[in-house]
């Protein structure tokens, strides 16, 4: 235990020092890794218990567009805009979640509903082009360095913002993963009827997971927009984004705490690596590889990269148990 | 006809059969009795190919069945009426029979086989266009047996035919099995209802916790203290 805690402290220290050491380009990558890690981890809140969503772009989109629109049209600070976006996403999740869970829609049918939801949000954004700029996207009004507007030309500020957010997401996961809550969620994931029979309020637990996942994803979407200072329906709400989230979380390992973050490292490394290697000649190369890898992961490594480490740990534990006999 | 030697089978890490050996001669009716969880169904599944054996030999008419897939074993002449009937619920009775006669040889003789099966089970003919899932328990059992008979098997495996049926219906089912037996079929039947099955079969085995605990003629088993005490409540 002590070794583990020391390891974490060291890792954290390294992360804090990082922005002062990294050249600008890598800092840019690191920020994106942190933001996406938060989003992927939020997705995994649901995914690890069997609630696989392939429409999380909907929540990202709601979060991103809410805060951006409120800023551009009403000058409302993102400090309020982002929570409002999260609230919007939470309400959407509540509605969809309640409808589905009440009617016992689970598994791939639930996934199809989320897919449709993602499409609806993306299409509404495009349809309201007079307000949102449609497929061309929109740019939040830039005001230079401002805490009020949550805009910082200096990357370091965003880095720490992203880092804090990432740590908060991990903290939420920790809180949700211990004690009765986690046991309840696992029970629901395995056998809903049995879980209900033991008195677990299945609906409440599932809704809780869904709403929290949606809200955090929305925040991630907003922060991403703030950082890039640009958003369009494809990059924040499209099917592509939704599938990317699924892929990264699964590839990294959605059952472990740091798995999705590993997934973020993987996907960003892949995108950037391909861009450097092939330039613009091979647009779409990244997705080709994602697609292939997703297939391979589902068939051979459904627990993702972190899953490989899981097995080793249990293998090490067994000889000790035998010795105790 | 059927030779099982030293059969071992498992589900994942759970071992269900430990070196089971039994034999069925042509024309015989053989029973396997034992408590729940003894491995009776597992035994059936290994013979019919639904479950692979871990070790041991399985020979049918001199040929080894090792490694054969279920559909190959059916082609070799073994038909299995599974536990819980396992009819296709949204197919009609007639369509279920069609499935039983999928093998080319059976398909070629479909009409005559169907006629024969309907003569054996007139109630089924009345219900031929009814969805199998809507039949009563006893009718479903009859349909399941009829379905297996469509391939004119050399060996018929019956897995717990009395399960979930009212006593009167159980009697009907066993009378049916007697008739089938009378037509010359070789039958291996796994049963919880010890009384009924020992009245039907020539020989029987007692399977307990994956091992053969007792074997002999039906009469011998009926008289055995072990069987009388544990399974017949005497």
């Amino acid at each position, binding site marked *: 235990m002590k070794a583990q805690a020391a390891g974490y402290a060291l890792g954290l220290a390294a992360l804090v020092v990082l922005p002062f050491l990294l050249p600008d380009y890598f800092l840019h990558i690191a920020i994106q890794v942190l933001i996406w890690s938060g989003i992927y981890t939020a997705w995994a809140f649901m995914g690890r218990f*069997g609630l*696989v969503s*392939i429409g999380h772009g909907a929540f990202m989109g709601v979060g991103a567009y809410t805060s951006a629109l409120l800023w551009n049209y009403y000058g409302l600070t993102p400090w309020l805009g982002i929570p409002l976006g999260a609230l919007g996403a939470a309400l959407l999740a509540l509605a969809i979640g309640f*409808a589905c869970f009440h*009617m*016992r*829609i*689970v*598994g*791939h*049918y639930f996934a*199809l*509903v989320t897919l*449709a*939801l993602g*499409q*609806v949000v993306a*299409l*509404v954004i495009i*349809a309201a082009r007079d307000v949102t700029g449609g497929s061309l996207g929109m740019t939040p009004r830039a005001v230079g360095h401002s805490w009020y507007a949550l805009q910082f030309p200096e990357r370091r500020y965003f880095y720490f913002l992203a880092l804090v957010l990432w740590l908060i997401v991990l903290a939420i996961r920790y809180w949700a993963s211990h004690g009765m809550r986690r046991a309840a969620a696992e029970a629901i994931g395995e056998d809903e009827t049995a879980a209900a029979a033991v008195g677990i309020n299945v609906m409440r637990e599932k809704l809780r997971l869904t709403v929290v996942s949606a809200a955090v994803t929305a925040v991630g979407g907003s922060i991403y927009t703030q950082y890039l200072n640009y958003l369009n329906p494809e990059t924040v709400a499209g099917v592509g984004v939704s*599938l990317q989230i*699924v*892929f990264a979380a*699964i590839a990294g390992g959605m059952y472990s705490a740091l798995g999705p973050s590993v997934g973020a490292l993987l996907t960003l490394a892949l995108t950037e690596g391909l861009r450097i290697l092939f330039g613009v000649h091979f*647009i*779409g*190369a990244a*997705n*080709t590889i*994602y*697609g*292939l*890898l*997703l*297939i*391979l*992961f*589902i068939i051979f490594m*459904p627990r993702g990269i972190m899953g490989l480490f899981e097995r080793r740990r249990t293998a090490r534990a067994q000889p000790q148990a035998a010795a105790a006999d | 006809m059927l030779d099982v030697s030293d059969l071992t089978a498992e589900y994942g890490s759970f071992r269900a059969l430990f070196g089971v050996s039994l034999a069925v001669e042509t024309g015989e009716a053989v029973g396997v009795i034992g408590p729940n969880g003894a491995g009776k169904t597992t035994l059936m599944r290994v013979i*019919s*190919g*639904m479950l692979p054996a871990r070790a041991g030999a399985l020979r049918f008419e001199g040929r080894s069945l090792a490694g054969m*897939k279920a559909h190959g074993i*059916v082609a070799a002449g073994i*038909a299995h009426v*599974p536990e819980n009937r*396992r009819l*296709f*619920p*949204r*197919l009609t009775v007639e*369509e279920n029979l*069609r*499935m*039983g006669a*999928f093998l080319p040889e*059976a398909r070629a003789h479909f009409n005559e086989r169907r006629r024969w099966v309907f003569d054996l089970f007139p109630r089924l003919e009345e219900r031929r266009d009814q969805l199998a899932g809507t039949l009563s328990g006893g009718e479903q059992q009859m349909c399941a047996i009829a*379905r*297996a008979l469509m*391939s004119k098997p050399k060996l018929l495996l019956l897995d717990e035919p009395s399960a979930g049926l009212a006593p009167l219906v159980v009697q009907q089912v066993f009378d049916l099995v007697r008739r089938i037996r009378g037509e010359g079929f070789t039958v291996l039947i796994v049963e919880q209802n010890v009384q009924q099955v020992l009245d039907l079969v020539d020989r029987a085995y007692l399977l307990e916790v994956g091992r053969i605990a007792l074997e002999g003629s039906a009469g011998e088993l009926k008289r055995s203290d072990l069987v009388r005490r544990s399974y017949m409540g005497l």
Partner: protein
Amino acid sequence: MDIFLLEAVLDGIMLGGLLALLALGLNLIFGVIDVVWICYAELVMVGMYAIYWLHVYYGWPFLLAGLAAILLVAVLGVLLHRVIIEPILGSPPINQLLATGGLLFFLQSFATLLFGTDFRNVGIRLPIIELGQIDLSFSRLLAFIAALLGAAGLYFFLAKTYLGTAIRAISQDREVMGLMGVDERRIYLTTSAIGGGLAGLSSCLLVLQYDVHPFLGLTFGPIVFMICVLGGLGNMIGGVIAAFVMSQIISIGGYYTSVELSDVLAFVLFIVMIVLRPKGILGR
């Protein structure tokens, strides 16, 4: 009635024929044998690209290119099942959705790599039939007829033939099929070939009316799933009816509002439909 509205209605009927044809293959795979090919529309896209390539680049006569496409996508269907679905057939269907989702990604991006994102047109102009003041597209009429014939054919195939009955049976109890002397793998592969072939047939007719581009699947995919669910999974006739209902919504909705909003309406309907399906039909 306003002549343009009438045209929208008729257009909707014609579109319905096309959608019904598209839905046939998916209904067989998703509706009958209960396998999730989320990349079904991408298979159609592959067929369309194949026809485009063979006809425009190599000068093959259209009918020959079409036949080749049907064969190609049928083979693709078989490979899809053998390589991707078979290893995960026993695990929860969500895995099938994710794995074929990966294939969706792959096919889209691969097409982008090969052909770029621009729209490609096969360049065949079929005649327009004029009924009074209304123009009817001949290619849509063809699709309409093909859909009706296909649905009827598939219905009879499933209901009356041995293979069709076996295909229906396998979704009800996969494990027991072996006890019938049926090689379940052969049934799945055959069905996958038929499903793929139907997708290929759809691409023949789609390519006459639409330009092909890598993201075509995003337009048609969700709608086709929706139609299968609406019409009752595995119900061929229901699928045809649902296709016409859906196409009317899209067509008339598009007439009154914008294109995107009519799509939104369609998707909202989808969500409502899935949520309201009686529990009994769920999760066979």
